[in-house]
């Protein structure tokens, strides 16, 4: 007969025990015991960028591309591309965005979700471009929290070894 899993009265201790042995018993303030097991789950998705594909292929070539409404009367330009115009519903075409812009807003993340915890602290910025109607969310590098402000001029950098992710582009302060 195998031993019963170890009993804990603090829930945070349960997690450590699960990592160690795979099972634990939690006893609550009323004395109720619950058996808890470790239950891992991993998935690999076959993710298609579909109509957004040219944007990510563009990043790999060092090009930042937005989209522009094809309807001449509308002509709305999107920094974060959309296959169809949000304003009038017409299809859009690909346009090159300026590689220089300004910080519309920013933050420094000292925590993140599990996948990004090891990268903290990192800066996020919403970038605005002249002549473009919407914004682009990016990482802001080569600067720290105390450097940042709304209106700060920034420019794009591209990963020479693209991973085909939005992180293939980032911005840095432009001087």
């Amino acid at each position, binding site marked *: 007969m195998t031993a019963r899993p170890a009993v804990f009265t603090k*829930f945070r201790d*349960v*997690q450590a025990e699960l990592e160690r042995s795979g099972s634990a018993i*939690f006893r*609550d303030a*009323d004395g*109720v*015991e*619950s058996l*808890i097991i470790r*239950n891992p*789950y991993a998935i690999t998705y076959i*993710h298609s*960028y579909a109509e*957004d594909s040219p944007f990510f292929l563009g990043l790999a070539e060092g090009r930042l591309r937005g989209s522009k409404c094809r309807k001449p009367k509308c002509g709305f330009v*999107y*920094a*974060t591309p*959309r296959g169809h115009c*949000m304003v009038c519903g017409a299809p859009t075409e690909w346009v090159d965005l300026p590689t220089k812009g300004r910080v*519309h*807003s*920013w*933050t*420094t*993340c*000292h*925590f*993140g*979700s*599990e*996948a*990004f*915890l090891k*990268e903290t602290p*990192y800066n*996020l*910025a*919403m970038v605005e471009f002249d002549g473009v*109607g*919407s*914004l*682009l*969310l*990016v*990482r802001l590098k080569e600067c720290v*929290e105390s450097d940042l*402000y*709304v*209106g700060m001029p920034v420019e794009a950098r591209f990963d020479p070894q693209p991973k085909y*992710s*939005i*992180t293939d582009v980032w911005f840095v302060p432009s001087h």
Partner: protein
Amino acid sequence: MPARRKAPKRRESVRPVRKLTPTTNARKVYMITGGVTKFAKAHPAMDFRLMVKRAYDYALKGVPNLTPDRIDGSRISYFSDHFTRQLKAASMVQDYLGLNPKGSVRIEWGGATGGECFQAGYEAVASGRMDLCVAAGFETMSRVATWKGNEFIALASDTNFDFPLGGFYTGYYALMVVRHIYEYVRQTKFASVPDEREAQRLAIAEASRIMSKVSVKNHLNALHNPYAQYPKRLTIEDVLRSEMISYPLTREQICTMSDGAACAVFATEERAKEFTDRPVRIIGVGTGTDTMRLADRPFGKVPLLPHERPRDYEDLPYPGIHSFRAGRAAGMEAYKMAGITRPNTELDFIELHDAYASSEIQTYEDLGLCKYGEGYDFTERGDPFLKGIDYGFPVPKAGAIPVNPSGGLIACGHPVGATGLMQAVFAFWQLQETIAKHFQDPALQLARPERGAIHSHAGTGSSVTVSILERGFR
């Protein structure tokens, strides 16, 4: 094994099309009872079914004449299949409550899941489809570690463009409040500071101090709410000094992950009278939406509430990333249906989706409690605070329109699929004037409230619900 019954003979005839006479119309809908579990970091001794059962049983205890056979069906909500790792969990709730084979639908609408479930329950009765409908919701967020939970929540942002940058909702809300502060504090109180970076830092410090008051308020109110997860007495300094999560938002300005369930029961006027002498009527419902990506928000004009004028917002690009257009739209629809033209005098309180202290202040403006840009001053004046509670700083206008008298999400917790229904139950008890009975503490009971609103909010403001509840008895 029971003997197999003979299949009935099928008659292969074409029946004439019968003309239907519609029998439904929008009807008056009342909430007749509600229940919540205590919200906690973890409820390992209860799975989601048992949690909902506890909230449901508590609700039914409030209407002793209501037997389950009188229930026509249910609407059941939870946000994330990732947290449960059990698809069709709503079917399992329906099953556990013993409500089969009555009709039921699962509701999911991001952070506004609970608020949407409330409206789905309302609609089932308003449409004439049901005379009596149970709306119940839950979330079991303790099933993964906190930062994995943050990842699940961040999957409710665009996974091509937003998630891979850091996948972090607090980061998104920080981006929004930094711009909100730039629009409304930097440009006003610090307009004369010549150095741009310094002016913005001063504005952020000033706004953070005021945001901290919201956190102090909600945690302190919750000291009188036994269902709350994190009731505590804090000072402004405690809030500011708590761990920096995403600049400028600190840990105490952010709601937490929770396990919990809540339940509300809706009925027609006739049924309501049968089961309670203190029904609460739902007089307005509204929903609003906005772009999934914050980056796509337009820079247009403010949709005006009846008490606002175009000149109030002449140079304000709206909503940009500083305000929640979906919250404004939801409020406008609900107010119109209810006939509300002056929300800050016609409502007696609001249970508001304060996932962040910053978004509570932003939402004061969206819901028209004050004008856009006045949220910080409105907080400083004390309008959203409760009278008779010592917050440790002056609140001259306390009691004007209490916001989150229960403690809100920041102090009660945010088990997503239950949250909007929790707000409904607390609002229901307020309007019934039964807070003392349910909380075993009368401190949070407002004096004869007539009308209150509940507000449930998803994503970076991509969907919002507002519902208006009114005392339905004399």
